[in-house]
């Protein structure tokens, strides 16, 4: 059995090396200047460590006139992602609870329709969103982006939460109703306290999804109000010019830090929540 143990550890180590490979490339490139990358090839060890990329990325980077680095774009991303994550998680929990524990006529149809939302491709939703935001007067504002991400997020969060709440014994809810508790009281007092695992799952899922989103962030925000994904693209994609790989790699690491942080923090709960959130 000892040999199988060693084999298992070996296999896992090899796999982690493969999984880490792209991150390693990015990390190495963040320590090389763009010039050195062009001189010696896209993948390689740094000839001389240059930490200037991080400083450049954080505060010196220029997106046309706005030379504030990605610092201000990170702030924009937070302003958009945090409220959208919290709101979509809240509504997901509420709706999941209503559909699974409170039951009403047609609840499974409703659930099915809402869940279909996770399959809609982004491109086809762009023009309708422009029209909706225009009519609501929210075009080109953080509020508009938050609305988009909340509405789209509800499809996912309801799916996760409803599948989790199905596991809560309905007797709990029945007993509380007999005692005279109403919809919201049961939610606050009974359901929410049982929810942390699934709430962590939805928070992690939503946070990473919204943080890394690019199409809507670029179309529905302007100039210095754009999210950090826009800043990353500015460094990467050009038609004729060459991307600034050194600074871009540093910027990518900085931009990925919040999501990685959320993963590390919530990792354990993620597992526990997925146990119940997806098994049904």
């Amino acid at each position, binding site marked *: 059995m000892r040999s199988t143990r060693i084999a298992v550890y070996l296999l896992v180590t090899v796999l982690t090396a493969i999984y880490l490979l792209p991150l390693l490339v990015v990390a190495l490139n963040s320590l090389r200047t763009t010039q050195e990358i062009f001189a010696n090839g896209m993948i390689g060890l740094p000839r001389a460590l240059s930490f200037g990329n991080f400083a450049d990325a954080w505060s010196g980077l220029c*997106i*046309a006139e706005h030379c504030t680095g990605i610092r201000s774009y990170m702030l924009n991303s937070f302003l958009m992602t945090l409220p959208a994550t919290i709101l979509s998680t809240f509504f997901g929990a509420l709706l999941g609870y209503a559909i699974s524990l409170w039951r009403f006529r047609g609840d499974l149809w409703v659930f099915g329709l809402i869940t279909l939302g996770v399959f809609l491709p982004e491109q086809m939703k762009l023009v309708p969103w422009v029209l909706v935001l225009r009519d609501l007067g929210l075009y080109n504002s953080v509020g508009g982006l938050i609305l988009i991400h909340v509405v789209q997020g509800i499809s996912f969060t309801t799916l996760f939460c409803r599948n989790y709440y199905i596991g809560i014994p309905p007797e709990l809810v029945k007993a509380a109703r007999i005692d005279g508790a109403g919809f919201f009281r049961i939610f606050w007092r009974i359901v929410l306290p049982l929810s942390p695992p699934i709430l962590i799952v939805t928070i992690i899922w939503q946070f990473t999804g919204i943080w890394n989103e*690019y*199409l809507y962030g*670029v179309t529905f925000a302007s100039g210095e109000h754009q999210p950090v994904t826009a800043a990353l693209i500015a460094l990467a994609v050009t038609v004729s010019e060459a991307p*600034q790989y050194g600074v871009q790699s540093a910027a990518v690491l900085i931009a990925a830090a919040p999501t990685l942080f959320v993963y590390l923090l919530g990792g354990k709960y993620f597992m526990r929540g997925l146990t119940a959130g997806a098994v049904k």
Partner: protein
Amino acid sequence: MTPIRRRSLLAASGTALLSQAAPRLARAEGKPRVTVITQWSAGSDGAAITALGDLFTKAGGDWQHNPVPGFTTDMMNKLRAQILSGDPPAVSQLKGPEIAAWSKIAPTVNLDADVAAAGYEKVVAPELIKLHKPFGHWISLPLQVYRINSIWISRKAADKVGVTALPKTWAEYNAIGEKMAKAGIQPVANGGTKWDNGMIWEIALSGISPAAYRKAVMELDAATLRGPEVLAAFEQTRKMSLWMDPNTASQHYSTFIPKFMKGDAGMLLMGGWVQGVYKKAGYQYSDYMTGPAPQDNGRPAFDLNADAFIFWQRKEPEFTAGQHLLAKLVMEKDTQKMYSGITGSLPVRTDMDLSDPAFSDAQREASASLGAAVKDDQAVLSLAHNMAQPNQITAAMIDVLTEFVTDHSITPQKGQARLAEAVDNVR
């Protein structure tokens, strides 16, 4: 509601209304203003547009630039969204036949008066004028010009095979290619992006016969598309595709700059912006030779790519003032000198003196060839850079061309037939 509460509510809303109106009042009697949407967010393009903004501000205007990072498509998405929501920018980047297409969906500004005042029409290439006066009057202004049909040869590679002069005809190009291939050098250093694939075909065709290019690509003449010059272009492109690095995949040409500079790849067919790219990557003029791409008929031809600003109609007087101010600035010699100096492009005006050290020899040579090509009626519009046709036709043609370059089993005859067919389908 109690009387007191009602009064304070009224007072509060009154103040709110006033505070909304106050800045508008202040702006109305204030400076000329423009809101600008472009995709130029980084690199020399970003620097140039920022410098233009500074000029505008110095001239007394209020400059609000919204750079949309990403490809041109993302910028157009933003433009589309702004127009749909009733808030078009005062000025936006647009080029080629798209100017005509987009001007049909939202009203534009008539710039005839500004152009006449600056005497601009006399110093712009006629091919460009057609694009910016799609319905009889000026609605947009070209900002900078690039020559697509330029060739760049690695000095180290050239030394290895004893090449000292640029190839003047495609036969000479092929001879150099064969010498390099025998010496183990990759003759063609182009990349694998779609537009790059389409571009080498168009450089071949415009080099073989600018007249055929004009008829086939710009006028979509069915007979010429199936004719011998286009077939020759396909054959040249097939030769070049076999000389390309098999590992290009969809890599940008800049990925292979190290290889080019080391002398392991020899010749690059690419527009004039490459000069800036090489400079930024840390290389000197002495590391490469550059000039016009091979021209079989010996007379200068110019494959045009030009960026432009389109001016969208706005009711507010400060926007109108800002648009006229920007129009005036963009047409001035000094502005164009500054802009092209930063990006490495060519000024639009054909009457510019580029002897200033800010410009390179390559730019001077290219600018002179623009004037000469215009006089000789050999100035054509680029297909791969969306100048010759609207995007839907361009995309269909580029798809055929990129397939041809990457799939070596397609014969030049078949490639030509496919191109003609694709054009017929989208005509």
